[in-house]
Protein backbone atom coordinates (compact mmCIF):
# COMPACT_ATOMS: atom_id res chain seq x y z
CA UNK A 1 0.00 0.00 0.00
CA UNK A 2 2.80 2.36 0.92
CA UNK A 3 4.59 1.83 -2.38
CA UNK A 4 1.57 2.31 -4.60
CA UNK A 5 0.46 5.46 -2.87
CA UNK A 6 1.39 8.54 -4.94
CA UNK A 7 3.81 10.99 -3.44
CA UNK A 8 1.36 13.88 -3.34
CA UNK A 9 -1.03 11.70 -1.37
CA UNK A 10 1.59 10.99 1.27
CA UNK A 11 2.49 14.64 1.44
CA UNK A 12 -1.15 15.48 1.97
CA UNK A 13 -1.27 12.89 4.72
CA UNK A 14 1.69 14.54 6.37
CA UNK A 15 0.20 18.04 6.23
CA UNK A 16 -3.08 16.70 7.58
CA UNK A 17 -1.29 15.14 10.53
CA UNK A 18 0.64 18.33 11.16
CA UNK A 19 -2.41 20.58 10.96
CA UNK A 20 -4.41 18.35 13.29
CA UNK A 21 -1.62 18.12 15.83
CA UNK A 22 -0.46 21.71 15.65
CA UNK A 23 -2.87 23.29 18.17
CA UNK A 24 -2.18 20.54 20.71
CA UNK A 25 1.57 20.83 20.23
CA UNK A 26 1.55 24.62 20.57
CA UNK A 27 -0.54 24.52 23.72
CA UNK A 28 1.40 21.66 25.27
CA UNK A 29 4.88 22.98 24.52
CA UNK A 30 3.97 26.57 25.31
CA UNK A 31 2.22 25.99 28.62
CA UNK A 32 3.36 22.61 29.96
CA UNK A 33 6.83 21.82 28.60
CA UNK A 34 8.18 25.37 28.48
CA UNK A 35 7.31 26.17 32.12
CA UNK A 36 8.97 22.98 33.30
CA UNK A 37 12.10 23.82 31.30
CA UNK A 38 12.02 27.35 32.66
CA UNK A 39 11.85 25.97 36.19
CA UNK A 40 14.99 23.94 35.49
CA UNK A 41 16.72 27.03 34.14
CA UNK A 42 15.69 29.31 36.99
CA UNK A 43 16.63 26.73 39.63
CA UNK A 44 20.37 27.37 39.13
CA UNK A 45 20.06 31.14 39.59
CA UNK A 46 19.53 33.46 42.47
CA UNK A 47 16.57 35.41 41.17
CA UNK A 48 13.87 37.60 42.63
CA UNK A 49 11.57 36.89 39.67
CA UNK A 50 11.46 40.43 38.37
CA UNK A 51 11.12 41.11 34.66
CA UNK A 52 13.66 39.69 32.25
CA UNK A 53 15.64 36.52 32.71
CA UNK A 54 17.81 35.70 35.74
CA UNK A 55 21.51 36.55 35.55
CA UNK A 56 23.03 35.67 38.93
CA UNK A 57 24.18 32.10 38.29
CA UNK A 58 24.74 30.11 41.48
CA UNK A 59 25.08 26.54 40.19
CA UNK A 60 23.54 23.97 42.49
CA UNK A 61 23.54 26.24 45.52
CA UNK A 62 19.73 26.30 45.66
CA UNK A 63 19.67 22.52 45.82
CA UNK A 64 22.30 22.21 48.53
CA UNK A 65 20.43 24.85 50.52
CA UNK A 66 17.23 22.88 50.00
CA UNK A 67 18.67 19.64 51.30
CA UNK A 68 19.90 21.38 54.43
CA UNK A 69 16.60 23.20 55.03
CA UNK A 70 14.67 21.77 57.95
CA UNK A 71 11.35 22.99 56.59
CA UNK A 72 11.92 21.24 53.29
CA UNK A 73 13.06 18.03 54.95
CA UNK A 74 9.96 18.31 57.11
CA UNK A 75 7.88 18.66 53.92
CA UNK A 76 9.29 15.35 52.71
CA UNK A 77 8.52 13.67 56.02
CA UNK A 78 4.98 15.07 56.10
CA UNK A 79 4.46 13.89 52.54
CA UNK A 80 5.51 10.39 53.55
CA UNK A 81 3.23 10.59 56.58
CA UNK A 82 0.22 11.55 54.46
CA UNK A 83 0.98 8.78 51.99
CA UNK A 84 1.20 6.20 54.76
CA UNK A 85 -2.03 7.43 56.37
CA UNK A 86 -3.79 7.35 53.00
CA UNK A 87 -2.67 3.80 52.30
CA UNK A 88 -3.36 2.47 55.78
CA UNK A 89 -6.59 4.29 56.64
CA UNK A 90 -8.23 5.95 53.68
CA UNK A 91 -7.88 3.29 50.99
CA UNK A 92 -9.01 0.38 53.21
CA UNK A 93 -12.01 2.49 54.23
CA UNK A 94 -12.83 3.18 50.57
CA UNK A 95 -12.39 -0.47 49.69
CA UNK A 96 -14.50 -1.67 52.60
CA UNK A 97 -17.33 0.73 51.86
CA UNK A 98 -17.20 -0.16 48.18
CA UNK A 99 -17.54 -3.85 49.02
CA UNK A 100 -20.46 -3.13 51.36
CA UNK A 101 -22.20 -1.00 48.77
CA UNK A 102 -21.75 -3.77 46.27
CA UNK A 103 -24.12 -5.85 48.36
CA UNK A 104 -27.84 -5.43 48.47
CA UNK A 105 -28.01 -2.79 51.14
CA UNK A 106 -31.00 -0.54 51.54
CA UNK A 107 -30.46 2.81 49.88
CA UNK A 108 -27.11 1.95 48.40
CA UNK A 109 -27.64 4.30 45.44
CA UNK A 110 -28.18 7.11 47.92
CA UNK A 111 -25.05 6.22 49.91
CA UNK A 112 -22.95 6.06 46.78
CA UNK A 113 -24.23 9.46 45.70
CA UNK A 114 -23.59 10.92 49.16
CA UNK A 115 -20.08 9.51 49.59
CA UNK A 116 -18.97 10.84 46.25
CA UNK A 117 -20.47 14.30 46.74
CA UNK A 118 -17.50 15.80 48.65
CA UNK A 119 -15.24 15.02 45.71
CA UNK A 120 -17.37 17.42 43.65
CA UNK A 121 -16.78 20.33 46.00
CA UNK A 122 -13.76 22.52 45.45
CA UNK A 123 -10.86 22.28 47.88
CA UNK A 124 -11.58 25.90 48.79
CA UNK A 125 -15.10 25.13 49.95
CA UNK A 126 -13.96 21.99 51.78
CA UNK A 127 -11.18 23.90 53.50
CA UNK A 128 -13.42 26.71 54.74
CA UNK A 129 -16.08 24.22 55.85
CA UNK A 130 -13.62 22.33 58.02
CA UNK A 131 -11.99 25.46 59.37
CA UNK A 132 -15.36 26.07 61.02
CA UNK A 133 -16.13 22.48 61.98
CA UNK A 134 -12.70 21.92 63.51
CA UNK A 135 -12.56 25.35 65.10
CA UNK A 136 -10.93 25.13 68.56
CA UNK A 137 -13.43 27.56 70.09
CA UNK A 138 -16.94 26.45 69.19
CA UNK A 139 -16.56 24.10 66.24
CA UNK A 140 -18.92 21.19 65.79
CA UNK A 141 -16.21 18.56 66.32
CA UNK A 142 -15.41 19.77 69.82
CA UNK A 143 -19.10 19.89 70.71
CA UNK A 144 -19.47 16.27 69.67
CA UNK A 145 -16.32 15.25 71.55
CA UNK A 146 -17.76 16.98 74.60
CA UNK A 147 -20.73 14.57 74.60
CA UNK A 148 -18.25 11.74 75.09
CA UNK A 149 -16.40 13.61 77.80
CA UNK A 150 -13.38 14.35 75.64
CA UNK A 151 -11.61 17.67 76.20
CA UNK A 152 -11.74 20.09 73.28
CA UNK A 153 -8.88 19.72 70.80
CA UNK A 154 -6.97 22.50 69.07
CA UNK A 155 -7.07 20.74 65.66
CA UNK A 156 -5.34 22.98 63.12
CA UNK A 157 -3.96 25.33 65.77
CA UNK A 158 -1.71 22.80 67.45
CA UNK A 159 1.47 21.55 65.71
CA UNK A 160 0.95 18.08 67.14
CA UNK A 161 -2.58 17.63 65.80
CA UNK A 162 -2.55 19.70 62.62
CA UNK A 163 -1.48 16.90 60.26
CA UNK A 164 -4.07 14.54 61.68
CA UNK A 165 -6.71 17.22 61.15
CA UNK A 166 -5.57 17.80 57.56
CA UNK A 167 -5.76 14.08 57.00
CA UNK A 168 -9.33 13.96 58.31
CA UNK A 169 -10.28 16.62 55.78
CA UNK A 170 -8.50 14.74 52.98
CA UNK A 171 -10.33 11.55 53.90
CA UNK A 172 -13.66 13.33 53.93
CA UNK A 173 -13.01 14.79 50.53
CA UNK A 174 -11.30 11.95 48.67
CA UNK A 175 -12.40 8.58 50.03
CA UNK A 176 -15.55 8.67 47.91
CA UNK A 177 -13.47 9.02 44.77
CA UNK A 178 -11.46 5.90 45.59
CA UNK A 179 -14.67 4.15 46.55
CA UNK A 180 -16.08 4.84 43.08
CA UNK A 181 -12.94 3.36 41.53
CA UNK A 182 -13.29 0.22 43.65
CA UNK A 183 -16.99 -0.13 42.87
CA UNK A 184 -16.20 0.09 39.16
CA UNK A 185 -13.40 -2.44 39.59
CA UNK A 186 -15.63 -4.79 41.56
CA UNK A 187 -18.32 -4.63 38.89
CA UNK A 188 -15.73 -5.71 36.35
CA UNK A 189 -15.21 -9.04 38.14
CA UNK A 190 -17.38 -11.74 36.53
CA UNK A 191 -19.96 -13.10 38.95
CA UNK A 192 -19.11 -16.68 37.93
CA UNK A 193 -15.79 -16.42 39.74
CA UNK A 194 -17.17 -15.48 43.15
CA UNK A 195 -20.04 -17.91 42.72
CA UNK A 196 -17.64 -20.72 41.88
CA UNK A 197 -15.70 -19.99 45.05
CA UNK A 198 -18.90 -20.09 47.11
CA UNK A 199 -19.91 -23.42 45.61
CA UNK A 200 -16.50 -24.71 46.62
CA UNK A 201 -17.40 -23.73 50.17
CA UNK A 202 -15.57 -20.44 50.60
CA UNK A 203 -17.17 -18.11 53.14
CA UNK A 204 -17.63 -14.36 52.66
CA UNK A 205 -14.22 -13.38 53.97
CA UNK A 206 -12.39 -16.08 52.06
CA UNK A 207 -14.13 -15.15 48.82
CA UNK A 208 -13.00 -11.59 49.36
CA UNK A 209 -9.46 -12.50 50.35
CA UNK A 210 -8.69 -15.08 47.68
CA UNK A 211 -10.93 -14.09 44.76
CA UNK A 212 -12.11 -10.49 44.89
CA UNK A 213 -9.00 -8.85 46.32
CA UNK A 214 -6.49 -10.34 43.84
CA UNK A 215 -8.79 -9.48 40.95
CA UNK A 216 -9.07 -5.92 42.23
CA UNK A 217 -5.27 -5.64 42.00
CA UNK A 218 -5.18 -3.28 39.00
CA UNK A 219 -7.76 -0.96 40.58
CA UNK A 220 -5.92 -0.93 43.91
CA UNK A 221 -2.63 -0.13 42.21
CA UNK A 222 -4.19 2.78 40.31
CA UNK A 223 -5.82 4.04 43.48
CA UNK A 224 -2.48 3.89 45.36
CA UNK A 225 -0.79 5.68 42.48
CA UNK A 226 -3.32 8.53 42.51
CA UNK A 227 -3.10 8.84 46.31
CA UNK A 228 0.67 9.17 46.24
CA UNK A 229 0.72 11.69 43.37
CA UNK A 230 -2.02 13.65 45.15
CA UNK A 231 -0.10 13.72 48.42
CA UNK A 232 3.08 14.89 46.68
CA UNK A 233 1.23 17.85 45.19
CA UNK A 234 -1.09 18.73 48.06
CA UNK A 235 -1.57 22.49 48.15
CA UNK A 236 -5.09 23.99 48.13
CA UNK A 237 -6.40 22.54 51.39
CA UNK A 238 -3.29 23.33 53.40
CA UNK A 239 -2.82 26.76 51.90
CA UNK A 240 -6.33 27.89 52.76
CA UNK A 241 -6.62 26.26 56.16
CA UNK A 242 -3.24 26.83 57.76
CA UNK A 243 -0.95 28.41 55.18
CA UNK A 244 1.54 25.76 56.33
CA UNK A 245 1.44 26.71 60.00
CA UNK A 246 1.53 26.74 62.94
CA UNK A 247 5.28 27.27 62.58
CA UNK A 248 5.63 25.16 59.41
CA UNK A 249 4.09 22.10 61.04
CA UNK A 250 1.66 21.45 58.18
CA UNK A 251 3.74 22.71 55.28
CA UNK A 252 3.96 20.61 52.13
CA UNK A 253 6.46 20.93 49.28
CA UNK A 254 3.96 22.86 47.18
CA UNK A 255 3.23 25.25 50.06
CA UNK A 256 6.93 25.88 50.69
CA UNK A 257 7.45 26.49 46.98
CA UNK A 258 4.53 28.90 46.91
CA UNK A 259 5.80 30.76 49.97
CA UNK A 260 9.23 31.34 48.50
CA UNK A 261 8.04 31.93 44.94
CA UNK A 262 5.09 34.23 45.49
CA UNK A 263 5.54 35.71 48.95
CA UNK A 264 9.28 36.06 49.51
CA UNK A 265 10.33 36.49 45.87
CA UNK A 266 13.11 33.91 46.01
CA UNK A 267 12.09 32.53 42.65
CA UNK A 268 15.33 30.68 41.97
CA UNK A 269 15.07 28.80 45.23
CA UNK A 270 11.36 28.11 44.73
CA UNK A 271 12.12 26.81 41.23
CA UNK A 272 14.56 24.37 42.76
CA UNK A 273 11.69 23.05 44.89
CA UNK A 274 9.55 22.73 41.74
CA UNK A 275 12.33 20.77 40.08
CA UNK A 276 12.60 18.43 43.05
CA UNK A 277 8.83 17.91 43.00
CA UNK A 278 9.06 17.18 39.30
CA UNK A 279 11.74 14.56 39.86
CA UNK A 280 9.99 12.93 42.79
CA UNK A 281 6.80 12.62 40.72
CA UNK A 282 8.73 11.39 37.69
CA UNK A 283 10.85 8.84 39.51
CA UNK A 284 7.88 7.54 41.42
CA UNK A 285 5.72 7.30 38.28
CA UNK A 286 8.42 5.56 36.25
CA UNK A 287 9.28 3.17 39.04
CA UNK A 288 5.66 2.42 39.74
CA UNK A 289 4.67 1.89 36.12
CA UNK A 290 7.77 -0.19 35.47
CA UNK A 291 7.60 -2.50 38.46
CA UNK A 292 4.12 -2.35 39.95
CA UNK A 293 1.68 -1.70 37.13
CA UNK A 294 3.50 -3.44 34.29
CA UNK A 295 1.25 -6.45 34.24
CA UNK A 296 -1.83 -4.24 34.38
CA UNK A 297 -0.74 -2.20 31.41
CA UNK A 298 -0.13 -5.34 29.38
CA UNK A 299 -3.58 -6.55 30.36
CA UNK A 300 -5.10 -3.22 29.40
CA UNK A 301 -3.53 -3.29 25.96
CA UNK A 302 -4.82 -6.77 25.23
CA UNK A 303 -8.28 -5.66 26.27
CA UNK A 304 -8.01 -2.71 23.92
CA UNK A 305 -6.94 -4.96 21.10
CA UNK A 306 -9.93 -7.21 21.63
CA UNK A 307 -12.23 -4.24 21.47
CA UNK A 308 -10.88 -3.10 18.12
Amino acid sequence: MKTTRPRSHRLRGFTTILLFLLPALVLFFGLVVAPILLAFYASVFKWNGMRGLPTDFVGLANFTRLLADEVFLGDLWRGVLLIILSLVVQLPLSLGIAMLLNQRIHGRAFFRLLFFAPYMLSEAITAVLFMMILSPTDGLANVVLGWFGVDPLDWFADPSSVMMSVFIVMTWKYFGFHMILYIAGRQGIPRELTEAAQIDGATGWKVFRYVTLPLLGPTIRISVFLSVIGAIQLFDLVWIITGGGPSHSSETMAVTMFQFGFKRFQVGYASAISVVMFFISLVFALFYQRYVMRRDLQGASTVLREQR
Partner: protein
Amino acid sequence: MSTSRHKQSPTSGGPLRSLSLHTIVVITALFVAVPLVYAVLGGFKTTRQLSSNPIGLPDPWMPENYGGILASGPFWRMLWNSTYIAVLTTLVVVAVSALAAFVFARFAFRGREALFTMFAAGLMFPFAVAILPLFVLLRMFGLLDNPLGVILPQAAFGMPMTIIILRGFFRAIPGEIEEAAILDGCTPFGFFWRILLPMARPAIATVSVLAVVNSWNQFMLPLVVFSDDGLFTIPLGVQQFQGQYATDVARVMAYIVVAMLPALGFYAVAERQLVSGLTAGAVKG
Protein backbone atom coordinates in the same frame (compact mmCIF):
# COMPACT_ATOMS: atom_id res chain seq x y z
CA MET B 1 -21.45 -24.34 61.26
CA SER B 2 -20.38 -26.61 58.46
CA THR B 3 -23.97 -27.41 57.54
CA SER B 4 -25.04 -23.81 57.34
CA ARG B 5 -21.97 -22.72 55.44
CA HIS B 6 -22.99 -23.59 51.94
CA LYS B 7 -26.47 -22.22 52.43
CA GLN B 8 -25.17 -18.83 53.38
CA SER B 9 -25.18 -16.53 50.39
CA PRO B 10 -22.48 -13.86 50.46
CA THR B 11 -24.91 -11.06 49.83
CA SER B 12 -27.33 -11.70 52.66
CA GLY B 13 -25.48 -13.27 55.61
CA GLY B 14 -27.22 -13.42 58.97
CA PRO B 15 -29.47 -10.59 60.07
CA LEU B 16 -26.97 -9.68 62.80
CA ARG B 17 -24.08 -9.45 60.40
CA SER B 18 -26.01 -7.39 57.89
CA LEU B 19 -27.05 -5.09 60.73
CA SER B 20 -23.43 -4.47 61.72
CA LEU B 21 -22.42 -3.88 58.11
CA HIS B 22 -25.24 -1.44 57.77
CA THR B 23 -24.00 0.32 60.89
CA ILE B 24 -20.58 0.91 59.32
CA VAL B 25 -22.19 2.43 56.24
CA VAL B 26 -24.46 4.63 58.35
CA ILE B 27 -21.56 5.88 60.50
CA THR B 28 -19.61 6.75 57.37
CA ALA B 29 -22.68 8.48 55.98
CA LEU B 30 -22.91 10.57 59.16
CA PHE B 31 -19.21 11.47 58.84
CA VAL B 32 -19.88 12.74 55.32
CA ALA B 33 -23.32 14.28 55.77
CA VAL B 34 -23.12 15.94 59.18
CA PRO B 35 -20.62 18.65 58.12
CA LEU B 36 -22.83 19.49 55.15
CA VAL B 37 -26.06 19.56 57.15
CA TYR B 38 -24.33 21.56 59.88
CA ALA B 39 -23.33 24.18 57.31
CA VAL B 40 -26.79 24.36 55.74
CA LEU B 41 -28.48 24.80 59.14
CA GLY B 42 -25.72 27.08 60.40
CA GLY B 43 -26.41 29.41 57.52
CA PHE B 44 -29.94 29.87 58.87
CA LYS B 45 -28.67 30.93 62.30
CA THR B 46 -26.99 34.03 63.55
CA THR B 47 -23.43 33.59 64.74
CA ARG B 48 -24.53 34.10 68.33
CA GLN B 49 -27.24 31.48 67.91
CA LEU B 50 -24.67 29.16 66.40
CA SER B 51 -22.41 29.26 69.43
CA SER B 52 -25.24 28.83 71.94
CA ASN B 53 -27.06 26.21 69.86
CA PRO B 54 -24.55 24.52 67.53
CA ILE B 55 -26.48 21.32 66.86
CA GLY B 56 -30.18 21.99 66.96
CA LEU B 57 -32.48 23.46 64.37
CA PRO B 58 -32.32 27.23 63.95
CA ASP B 59 -34.65 29.02 66.34
CA PRO B 60 -35.79 31.31 64.90
CA TRP B 61 -34.87 30.58 61.26
CA MET B 62 -32.87 33.50 59.88
CA PRO B 63 -32.86 33.58 56.06
CA GLU B 64 -30.99 36.92 56.06
CA ASN B 65 -27.53 35.38 55.50
CA TYR B 66 -28.64 33.49 52.42
CA GLY B 67 -30.74 36.37 51.21
CA GLY B 68 -27.87 38.82 51.59
CA ILE B 69 -25.52 36.66 49.53
CA LEU B 70 -28.04 35.98 46.78
CA ALA B 71 -28.83 39.68 46.59
CA SER B 72 -25.19 40.70 46.34
CA GLY B 73 -23.56 41.53 43.02
CA PRO B 74 -20.10 40.05 43.69
CA PHE B 75 -21.44 36.52 44.16
CA TRP B 76 -23.26 36.50 40.83
CA ARG B 77 -20.27 38.00 39.09
CA MET B 78 -18.05 35.20 40.45
CA LEU B 79 -20.60 32.62 39.37
CA TRP B 80 -20.50 34.13 35.90
CA ASN B 81 -16.67 34.21 35.88
CA SER B 82 -16.46 30.57 36.96
CA THR B 83 -19.04 29.59 34.36
CA TYR B 84 -17.53 31.17 31.31
CA ILE B 85 -13.99 30.17 32.27
CA ALA B 86 -15.19 26.56 32.65
CA VAL B 87 -17.08 26.65 29.35
CA LEU B 88 -14.23 28.19 27.36
CA THR B 89 -11.66 25.87 28.96
CA THR B 90 -13.81 22.91 28.00
CA LEU B 91 -14.27 24.11 24.43
CA VAL B 92 -10.54 24.65 23.95
CA VAL B 93 -9.37 21.44 25.59
CA VAL B 94 -11.94 19.22 23.88
CA ALA B 95 -11.42 20.76 20.42
CA VAL B 96 -7.64 20.64 20.55
CA SER B 97 -7.49 17.19 22.15
CA ALA B 98 -10.06 15.69 19.77
CA LEU B 99 -7.99 16.75 16.76
CA ALA B 100 -4.84 15.29 18.30
CA ALA B 101 -6.57 12.12 19.49
CA PHE B 102 -7.94 11.63 15.96
CA VAL B 103 -4.41 11.66 14.58
CA PHE B 104 -3.11 9.36 17.32
CA ALA B 105 -5.96 6.92 16.78
CA ARG B 106 -6.30 6.94 13.00
CA PHE B 107 -2.97 7.77 11.34
CA ALA B 108 0.19 5.70 11.20
CA PHE B 109 3.37 7.75 11.14
CA ARG B 110 6.83 7.55 12.56
CA GLY B 111 7.17 8.86 16.10
CA ARG B 112 3.46 8.55 16.82
CA GLU B 113 3.84 6.47 19.97
CA ALA B 114 6.68 8.63 21.27
CA LEU B 115 4.61 11.76 20.79
CA PHE B 116 1.60 10.17 22.40
CA THR B 117 3.68 9.03 25.38
CA MET B 118 4.92 12.57 25.80
CA PHE B 119 1.36 13.89 26.01
CA ALA B 120 0.34 11.09 28.35
CA ALA B 121 3.30 11.84 30.62
CA GLY B 122 1.82 15.29 31.14
CA LEU B 123 -0.73 13.54 33.34
CA MET B 124 1.80 13.36 36.15
CA PHE B 125 2.60 17.05 36.29
CA PRO B 126 -0.24 19.26 37.44
CA PHE B 127 -0.02 22.90 38.33
CA ALA B 128 1.96 22.64 41.54
CA VAL B 129 5.11 21.73 39.62
CA ALA B 130 4.74 24.35 36.91
CA ILE B 131 2.85 27.18 38.58
CA LEU B 132 5.84 29.42 39.23
CA PRO B 133 7.41 29.41 35.75
CA LEU B 134 3.88 29.46 34.32
CA PHE B 135 3.30 32.68 36.20
CA VAL B 136 6.52 34.13 34.77
CA LEU B 137 5.49 33.13 31.24
CA LEU B 138 1.97 34.50 31.60
CA ARG B 139 3.43 37.77 32.82
CA MET B 140 5.69 37.84 29.78
CA PHE B 141 2.69 37.32 27.47
CA GLY B 142 0.67 39.93 29.36
CA LEU B 143 -1.95 37.40 30.40
CA LEU B 144 -2.09 38.22 34.10
CA ASP B 145 -5.49 39.51 35.20
CA ASN B 146 -6.84 38.09 31.96
CA PRO B 147 -9.25 35.14 31.85
CA LEU B 148 -7.16 33.65 29.03
CA GLY B 149 -4.31 33.33 31.52
CA VAL B 150 -6.43 30.75 33.34
CA ILE B 151 -8.26 29.22 30.38
CA LEU B 152 -5.25 28.35 28.23
CA PRO B 153 -3.08 26.72 30.95
CA GLN B 154 -6.09 24.78 32.23
CA ALA B 155 -6.74 23.53 28.72
CA ALA B 156 -3.06 22.63 28.28
CA PHE B 157 -2.94 20.66 31.52
CA GLY B 158 -6.27 19.00 30.78
CA MET B 159 -5.08 17.68 27.41
CA PRO B 160 -3.29 14.49 28.54
CA MET B 161 -6.36 12.96 30.17
CA THR B 162 -8.67 14.12 27.38
CA ILE B 163 -6.43 12.78 24.62
CA ILE B 164 -6.05 9.40 26.34
CA ILE B 165 -9.80 8.91 26.77
CA LEU B 166 -10.73 10.16 23.29
CA ARG B 167 -8.03 8.16 21.55
CA GLY B 168 -9.31 4.98 23.14
CA PHE B 169 -12.81 5.79 21.96
CA PHE B 170 -11.81 6.83 18.42
CA ARG B 171 -9.86 3.61 18.01
CA ALA B 172 -12.93 1.56 18.79
CA ILE B 173 -14.81 2.97 15.79
CA PRO B 174 -14.45 0.45 12.89
CA GLY B 175 -12.08 1.27 10.07
CA GLU B 176 -14.71 0.29 7.47
CA ILE B 177 -16.68 3.43 8.29
CA GLU B 178 -13.67 5.58 7.56
CA GLU B 179 -12.96 3.76 4.30
CA ALA B 180 -16.55 4.19 3.18
CA ALA B 181 -16.45 7.88 3.98
CA ILE B 182 -13.18 8.39 2.11
CA LEU B 183 -14.56 6.51 -0.91
CA ASP B 184 -17.53 8.83 -0.89
CA GLY B 185 -15.12 11.74 -1.19
CA CYS B 186 -14.84 12.78 2.45
CA THR B 187 -11.69 14.67 3.43
CA PRO B 188 -9.97 13.65 6.69
CA PHE B 189 -11.41 16.69 8.37
CA GLY B 190 -14.85 15.97 6.89
CA PHE B 191 -14.70 12.45 8.31
CA PHE B 192 -13.57 13.78 11.67
CA TRP B 193 -16.19 16.49 11.82
CA ARG B 194 -19.25 14.85 10.29
CA ILE B 195 -18.81 11.20 11.26
CA LEU B 196 -16.29 10.63 14.05
CA LEU B 197 -17.34 13.42 16.41
CA PRO B 198 -21.08 12.64 16.24
CA MET B 199 -20.33 8.95 16.83
CA ALA B 200 -18.09 9.80 19.78
CA ARG B 201 -20.72 11.90 21.51
CA PRO B 202 -20.72 9.88 24.77
CA ALA B 203 -16.94 10.17 25.05
CA ILE B 204 -17.08 13.88 24.25
CA ALA B 205 -19.69 14.31 26.98
CA THR B 206 -17.49 12.45 29.45
CA VAL B 207 -14.34 14.48 28.83
CA SER B 208 -16.34 17.72 28.78
CA VAL B 209 -17.81 17.00 32.18
CA LEU B 210 -14.35 16.26 33.58
CA ALA B 211 -13.00 19.49 32.11
CA VAL B 212 -15.86 21.53 33.56
CA VAL B 213 -15.38 20.08 37.04
CA ASN B 214 -11.60 20.54 37.00
CA SER B 215 -11.93 24.12 35.85
CA TRP B 216 -14.71 24.88 38.32
CA ASN B 217 -12.65 23.72 41.30
CA GLN B 218 -9.28 25.05 40.21
CA PHE B 219 -7.76 27.24 42.91
CA MET B 220 -4.01 27.66 42.50
CA LEU B 221 -3.97 29.03 38.98
CA PRO B 222 -6.61 31.75 39.39
CA LEU B 223 -5.00 32.58 42.73
CA VAL B 224 -1.78 33.67 41.04
CA VAL B 225 -3.27 35.00 37.78
CA PHE B 226 -6.07 37.19 39.17
CA SER B 227 -5.36 40.05 41.51
CA ASP B 228 -8.43 42.06 40.41
CA ASP B 229 -11.33 40.63 42.39
CA GLY B 230 -13.74 41.51 39.59
CA LEU B 231 -12.26 38.48 37.80
CA PHE B 232 -12.38 36.12 40.78
CA THR B 233 -13.85 32.65 40.41
CA ILE B 234 -15.92 30.97 43.13
CA PRO B 235 -13.03 29.20 44.95
CA LEU B 236 -11.17 32.52 45.23
CA GLY B 237 -14.36 34.21 46.34
CA VAL B 238 -14.87 31.63 49.08
CA GLN B 239 -11.38 32.20 50.42
CA GLN B 240 -11.79 35.98 50.23
CA PHE B 241 -15.17 35.91 51.95
CA GLN B 242 -13.82 33.73 54.72
CA GLY B 243 -10.98 36.21 55.23
CA GLN B 244 -13.37 39.17 55.36
CA TYR B 245 -16.01 37.71 57.65
CA ALA B 246 -13.95 35.20 59.64
CA THR B 247 -15.71 36.13 62.87
CA ASP B 248 -19.22 35.97 61.39
CA VAL B 249 -19.25 32.18 61.17
CA ALA B 250 -22.91 31.78 60.27
CA ARG B 251 -22.53 34.11 57.33
CA VAL B 252 -19.49 32.23 56.03
CA MET B 253 -21.46 29.01 56.31
CA ALA B 254 -24.30 30.43 54.28
CA TYR B 255 -21.76 31.56 51.71
CA ILE B 256 -20.11 28.18 51.23
CA VAL B 257 -23.50 26.47 51.07
CA VAL B 258 -24.56 28.78 48.26
CA ALA B 259 -21.18 28.26 46.61
CA MET B 260 -21.65 24.48 46.77
CA LEU B 261 -24.98 24.46 44.99
CA PRO B 262 -23.82 24.85 41.38
CA ALA B 263 -21.30 21.99 41.74
CA LEU B 264 -23.81 19.72 43.43
CA GLY B 265 -26.47 20.58 40.86
CA PHE B 266 -24.04 19.76 38.08
CA TYR B 267 -23.19 16.51 39.84
CA ALA B 268 -26.87 15.57 39.99
CA VAL B 269 -27.24 16.16 36.26
CA ALA B 270 -23.96 14.71 35.00
CA GLU B 271 -23.20 11.98 37.54
CA ARG B 272 -23.04 9.21 34.96
CA GLN B 273 -20.59 10.95 32.62
CA LEU B 274 -18.49 12.02 35.55
CA VAL B 275 -18.18 8.58 37.07
CA SER B 276 -17.52 6.90 33.74
CA GLY B 277 -14.89 9.51 32.94
CA LEU B 278 -13.11 9.18 36.25
CA THR B 279 -13.05 5.40 36.18
CA ALA B 280 -12.07 5.27 32.50
CA GLY B 281 -9.34 7.82 33.06
CA ALA B 282 -8.02 5.97 36.07
CA VAL B 283 -8.11 2.56 34.42
CA LYS B 284 -6.51 3.68 31.18
CA GLY B 285 -4.22 6.36 32.59
